[in-house]
């Protein structure tokens, strides 16, 4: 596994009329090997922009992103991504969706199928291999998206509010599922969210973003033991962290509101 180094990355958007909006102030940040980092911030603070720059789907106005020391030039299979919107290919079955990246890299079909079966089992979708995405619930579609990203064996998994569109109960179950997978596989994960509980529960480290133009305001280590169970959310340590982060985010949300 590998590390990501974000070095003085900023982003300025320019409208057609030449108006400039600074979405990101220069950000410096390191994601270490096997780290699970959540980026927490109010809506529109530029945290998704940062993630998209790491993914190579957007480019930095200044600064650079290094993956294992090599600069990121564009999107690639070594940085898997799970989006907030449902991005399964609707014309492919669940199994074919998970095999998409494997087929793209020319893996033999038998091996593709074996790998797909492993990850389908991992996210609890056995029996749904031949379904089309539209036939599944939102939670099941996002589980497929996670399996699709993991099957590709990326060096880092980027997650852009992947559970943001799900109902609360499903979201909690998905958090546990993803955390269980992480505890077993120890992938490096960079996870964007605006949900404080989610940010603490999932992470080793929480980076709090300021209001737009975004920058990293605070970093907080989360030393809760693994494996984590949902009951941890009522423990005093968790509550302490939550109180601190709530205060941080509140200040930023108010600042964002004034703009």
């Amino acid at each position, binding site marked *: 596994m590998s590390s990501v180094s974000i070095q003085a990355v900023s982003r300025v958007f320019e409208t057609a009329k030449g108006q400039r909006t600074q979405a990101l102030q220069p950000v410096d940040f390191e994601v270490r090997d096997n780290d699970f980092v959540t980026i927490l911030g109010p809506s529109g603070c530029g945290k998704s922009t940062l993630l998209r720059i790491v993914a190579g789907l957007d480019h930095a106005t200044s600064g650079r992103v290094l993956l294992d020391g090599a600069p990121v030039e564009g999107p690639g299979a070594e940085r898997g991504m799970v989006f907030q919107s449902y991005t399964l290919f609707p014309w492919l079955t669940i199994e074919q969706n998970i095999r*998409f990246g494997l087929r793209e890299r020319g893996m033999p079909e038998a091996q593709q199928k074996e790998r797909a079966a492993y990850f389908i089992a991992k996210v609890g979708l056995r029996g749904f291999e031949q379904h089309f995405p539209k036939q599944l619930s939102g939670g099941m579609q996002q589980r497929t998206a996670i399996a699709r990203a993991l099957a590709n064996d990326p060096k880092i998994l980027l997650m852009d509010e992947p559970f943001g569109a799900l109902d609360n109960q499903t979201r909690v179950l998905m958090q546990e599922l993803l955390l269980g997978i992480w505890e077993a596989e120890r992938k490096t994960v960079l996870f964007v969210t605006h949900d404080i509980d989610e940010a603490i529960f999932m992470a080793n480290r929480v980076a709090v973003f300021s209001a737009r133009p975004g920058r990293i305001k605070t970093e907080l280590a989360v030393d809760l033991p693994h494996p984590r169970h949902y009951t941890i959310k009522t423990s005093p340590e968790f509550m302490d962290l939550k109180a601190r982060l709530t205060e941080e985010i509140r200040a930023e949300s108010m600042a964002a509101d004034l703009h």
Partner: protein
Amino acid sequence: MSAVQPLSVTEPKAPVRRRRSLAPLEPVSARARWMLGLAFFVVFVAVWAFFTLGGFVSPTFLASPITMAKEGWLLFTEYGFIKDIGMTIWRVVGGFVLAAVIAVPLGIAMGAYKGIEAFFEPFISFCRYLPASAFIPLLILWAGIGEAQKILVIFIGSVFQITLMVAVTVGGARRDLVEAAYTLGAGHKGIVTRVLIPGAAPEIAETLRLVLGWAWTYVIVAELIGSSSGIGHMITDSQALLNTGQIIFGIIVIGLIGLVSDSFFKFVNRRLFAWSFVR
């Protein structure tokens, strides 16, 4: 005095029973659909029969349904009408397939690559508004009154329409799916062949179905002028003989063939692109 007037309170009435089938957007059963669809044909023929058989319209100008059926029978038994139908179908399919073979790949290329689109789009948009039938005199000069001229009319009428509609469909691909494919390691070629084309395929097929319908109107026009076979030619011949029965029969045959080919296209699309019809 309160600022807000209370809503007038009325005695709760017994719930009014409304026919649900009369509510907006409420679907009707498959059986009812058939019956209703058929009913209109019956009404249409009944009104036609009433005016013609009742003597309200001169038979010189409008044949009755019975005359039409007789004439239709004669067309098949005496005048070899089946050969005319065959010729017309051949021309439509020939011109249409030729147009599709060129227009679909070009449309995909335009939709996928903005440079190619910028190169072709203005010219094709201009050509799209040129009426295919206005080309007939010119095409007769160039290609004579043979098959090439008929097929070219269909081709000109279809090729620009298909190209533009396919380009718009492909260009409108969901950006998030394209991005997802990139993060899964797809290259530019992979994006086109594994995301843009499969995603656009059902709508491309739907475009072809639509344009095939238009091609039918062009072929008849092409056959009305300078032709020695085909349904359109039969219609012009019948006009000279004031045989309105044959004309109407010819028009109805065109409608029926259109209906059959349309249903066939729909059926094939549903089989090929089952995923896009899921719920």
